[in-house]
């Protein structure tokens, strides 16, 4: 038993790699802080555009969203991060990752918010317009507040998914928590840093999963 602890929960190795892991954790948090609000903003823009667009544009948007959803997020990430330089664009690695993950997660946020807007009776639009509100005003003050409330559980579920996506950054060599844990493992030839990273992920994500369960979110997202 002692040897298992020494191998997987080696205090000395964990202490020595703590600095590295902490730097990685900061990068993971940076990615989350860019991707989650970014995805919500782009998704909200997509959903509101679809709600006022003519039917052909609405259909085109839905195909576009499905095209993004057909990509494994890692494939989208690799394509954007390794493909952009060939177009002469060399964004800093963090920005490249943030763009790819935002595109992915915005498609899901957009789909959820679109369902939320569709859940509001059409008569509410007409009633609000008849009070003299402009179309943006109707969306902002009448439709969106109710729409968001109706799909809050799904929004929370997708936020959990978006936070989990950040681990993909390690696959394109961004020095995030998972990447730093792998590096520390190589240095010490001991898996304790990986175990510590796994514990850190759980520490952040488990409470979020608990929130999702409490407000009744499907953790089963639309695709």
């Amino acid at each position, binding site marked *: 038993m002692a040897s298992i602890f020494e191998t997987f929960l080696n205090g000395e190795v964990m202490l020595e790699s703590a600095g590295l892991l902490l730097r990685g954790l900061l990068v993971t948090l940076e990615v989350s802080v860019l991707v989650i609000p970014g995805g919500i903003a782009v998704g909200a823009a997509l959903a509101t555009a679809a709600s006022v667009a003519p039917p052909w544009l609405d259909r085109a948007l839905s195909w576009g969203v499905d095209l993004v959803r*057909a990509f494994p997020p890692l494939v989208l990430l690799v394509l954007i991060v390794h493909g952009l330089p060939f177009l002469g664009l060399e964004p800093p690695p963090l920005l490249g990752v943030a763009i790819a993950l935002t595109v992915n997660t915005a498609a899901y946020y957009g789909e959820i918010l679109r369902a939320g807007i569709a859940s509001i009776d059409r008569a509410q639009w007409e009633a609000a317009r008849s009070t003299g509100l402009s179309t943006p005003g109707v969306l902002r003050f009448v439709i969106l507040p109710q729409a968001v409330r109706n799909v809050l559980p799904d929004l929370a579920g997708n936020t959990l998914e978006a936070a989990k996506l950040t681990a993909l950054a390690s696959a394109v060599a961004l020095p995030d928590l998972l990447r730093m844990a792998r590096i520390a493992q190589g240095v010490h030839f001991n*898996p304790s840093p990986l175990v510590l990273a796994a514990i850190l992920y759980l520490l952040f994500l488990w409470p979020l999963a608990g929130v999702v369960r409490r407000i009744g979110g499907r953790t089963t997202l639309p695709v």
Partner: protein
Amino acid sequence: MGIFFDPEVWGIAWPPIRSGILITLALALASIAAGTAAGFALSLARTLPVRRLAAAIVVYSDAFRAFPPLVLLVVLYFAAPFAGIELSGFAASFLALALVLAASAEEIFWAGLTSVRRGQWEAALSTGMSRAATLRRVILPQAVRLTIPPLTNRAIATGKNTALASVVAVPEVLNQAASIQAQTASPAPLLLAAVVYVALFLPLVRLGRWLEDRFPSP
């Protein structure tokens, strides 16, 4: 832009990517079958009147839905050997994807089972049916309807997550494309891989959308 569509590189990349498709499909089908079956078994086990078992299942389900699949895969592949468990890349990927899917599937089946009203149980039991027969003949047929759209979506997500196996050197589509990209210094193999993924998954994504409209959740 032309470099993305270089026909010569597409020609070089196609044979390895084609063999990658078979591995992607094998990994997807194996982990979807195992994960769904395990999730179903867990949800049935949770109906048993054993409180500790039910609590353990809830903990498992929450933990594996909270955990990023890639982190689980990396732990299985790079840490397990230190415990004397040497998994191949394919086996580690299969296990990671199946464990994650089982957690979601358990939750979906459970939501389906609990959506069937109590009166249905009582009525069926009062006809003299056993618990097992009630579950099989009355409850499950009603529960399954509700589980179809979310389960389809989870299965598609699992299929897409097979791309993670490229990180542990499984020669599936993304991995093959990345190695040809390195050899040819061209982004064309990645674009070809993207086309393959879209061809595989776009029809399934549309199917998922259709199922959600067809069987709306209450």
